[in-house]
């Protein structure tokens, strides 16, 4: 315990940190919902939804960043109060043991729930990343075929018979 510690201030900061982590968790849960919607829009090629999801995502991220700033200020102050050698780098896990019992338990619960949501969020973000990379690769292939590669697949001749796909580039001829 820091000889300069102020138990009352530490309690107030601890409670503030709990509330901060709860808000962060709520924001991350909202973000998780948005990312799930984003995934759906990505695979269903719903461009309008993708656009609105992106705006919502941006708005949530700004709020998360604001809360993160608040969390960093609170953890630094608590680190100072508990006499941590580098208060700016103190982790919530390091703080729990220095807080009064009921606040310590509440903080620990908030921390665990936040970590769980963050883990889900990480998975969802990785899925979205894979989808986007795959889709962009796919689109790139078709775009490159449009401008300089072979005709795509087989078509039909005017009499209704199948025409082979190896007859040169109709796209090139047309776009000439």
């Amino acid at each position, binding site marked *: 315990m820091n000889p300069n510690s102020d138990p009352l201030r530490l309690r107030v900061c601890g409670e503030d940190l709990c509330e901060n*982590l709860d808000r962060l968790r709520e924001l991350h*849960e909202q973000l*998780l*919902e948005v*990312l*799930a919607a984003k995934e759906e*829009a*990505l*695979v*269903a*090629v719903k461009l309008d939804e*993708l*656009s609105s999801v*992106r705006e919502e*995502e*941006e708005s949530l*991220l700004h709020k998360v*960043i604001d809360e*993160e700033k608040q*969390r*960093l200020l609170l953890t630094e102050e608590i680190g100072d109060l508990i006499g941590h050698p580098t208060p700016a780098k103190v*982790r*919530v896990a390091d703080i729990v043991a220095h807080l009064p019992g009921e606040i310590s338990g509440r903080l620990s619960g908030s*921390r665990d729930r*936040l*970590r769980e*949501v*963050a883990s*889900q*969020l*990480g*998975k969802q*973000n990785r*899925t979205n*990343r894979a*989808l*986007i*990379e*795959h*889709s*962009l690769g*796919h*689109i790139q292939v*078709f*775009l490159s*075929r*449009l401008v300089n590669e072979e005709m*795509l*697949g*087989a*078509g*039909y*001749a005017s*009499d*209704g018979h199948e*025409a082979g796909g190896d007859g040169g580039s*109709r*796209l090139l001829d*047309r*776009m000439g």
Partner: protein
Amino acid sequence: MSLFSSLNMARLALGAHQTAIQTIGQNIANATTEGYARQRVQMTPTPSDDLVFAQLGTGVRVSRIERIVDEHLESTLRDSRSDLSNLTEQNRIWSLTESIYNDLGGGGLSAAMGGFFDAVQDLSLNPDDPTARALLLQQGESLAETLHFMDSRIRDLRAGLDEDLQGSVLDVNRLSREIAALNRAIIAAEDGGINRDTANDLRTRRDVLLGTLAEQVDIRVLENSTGGVQVLAGSEMLVFDGRSRELTLVPTSDGDISLHEVRFADDGARFQAVGGRLDALQEGRDALLPDLRRELDEIAGRMISEVNAIHSTGEGLTRLSEILSGTAVTDRNAPLSGANLPFSIEDGGFTLQVVTEANGARESFRIDIDTAGMSLADLAEQVNLTAGASHSEISAAVTADGRLLIRSSDPGVTFTFRDDDSGVLTALGINGLFTGTNARDIAVSDTLLADASLVSAGSGGGPGDNTSALEIAALRDKGVFAAGNTFEGQYLALIGEIGVHAAEARNHLSNQGAITQAIQNQRESLSGVNIDEEAISLITYQRAYQAAARFLSVIDQLLETLINSV
């Protein structure tokens, strides 16, 4: 979410999205394909997992890939293509017909008739001139050859249309079979109608084939609940689900032309196309060209009968000592009215004039004709009973092949004919300038070609007599046809009629072409692939996905910071 669920979601999502992009690729590949209908993917989210704090999607699946097609527009386009094909064929037939009757080069029938009448006019000026006689016969042959040529071209065109019709029938059969096969494939692919409108490529191909079939014959297309179609031509079924009815070609003939009747192979019923190319071919082959040929035959027949009616009762520089009728009867004892003579006859008679060459004495014998009560044998007998009774050298008989033969056994006794108000001499082909009855068999009499002095320029008035020649020359300006038309007028009217029809066909074709193009444009705007639009779709997707990637790293960094700090 379990690892399995996550992987399954990714599989569904990637597959669905790949289908969406590949559908764009398919559209682009078929951008210039006639009849292709663009396709769009419809996706449906799969049921989501209900987590405590969120609804997590489990992916999407492609619910259907729909063809952007308006069935009513497709049907209208098929009808329009059928009309266009019909009018295209009509236009081709009229153009070919026009070329047969084209007189612009100066070598046509009008010129040939003019040349013949000019030669008759020349003969009337010099009735005793052997050169004028030879020239007349030459012009007569030229006229006959022109008619033969036109007749043969009509026959050739008719035979050509028959060949085209055979090809068209083969096409109809092939297309019907292929549509039936596609019906089977579509019914199987769509589970007998449970998954309607899902076999897009098969349906597109069937639509293309239906459009091609409609060009051959006007059809009605009715789709069943199973996804198969019934194809009706008029009231006759061509295709029903997986079965097609074959058409067959039955050889037949029309006079001197070998043709083919179109019948159903299963029950032998005649098939008369309504609309489309086949209809135009049948109409051209069986109605238009026979009509035109009849009109040409009428001109030729009227030329033969009118000229021969004068020539048969005229007289040449030398008179007849033997004449054999050009027309044969099948039953020598049948009444003349029922003997199927090529030209009309009526009750009346003609005069047989017997000439004693030594002194120029002439004796006339009236032969009465009772068309209903007199046979060819009776006619011969009446000649024998009248002229033959007075002049034993003169005799008449019916030959074994049913022709009337009148002859003189003494070269010093000849005969000639006068005043035939029954038309029997013309009908029997006695002493005519022309033989034959129509455009195909018209010819200058072999007897005259062998002895031009027999050409009847006069009427027994001796040297310089041009009576008959003048009468024949006057036919040029005589209204011998029902509408009061002269020979040339009748022919020009026929040419004019053909020209009007040909022009109408061209106009109709032009109008129908514009109508079809307008419908085609409507169809293209709905179902056609705009390659620029598809490319823009791809680029739009690309930009949307690039934008979607924008916060991926931000979130990763935030999460890393968060995990490390708490």
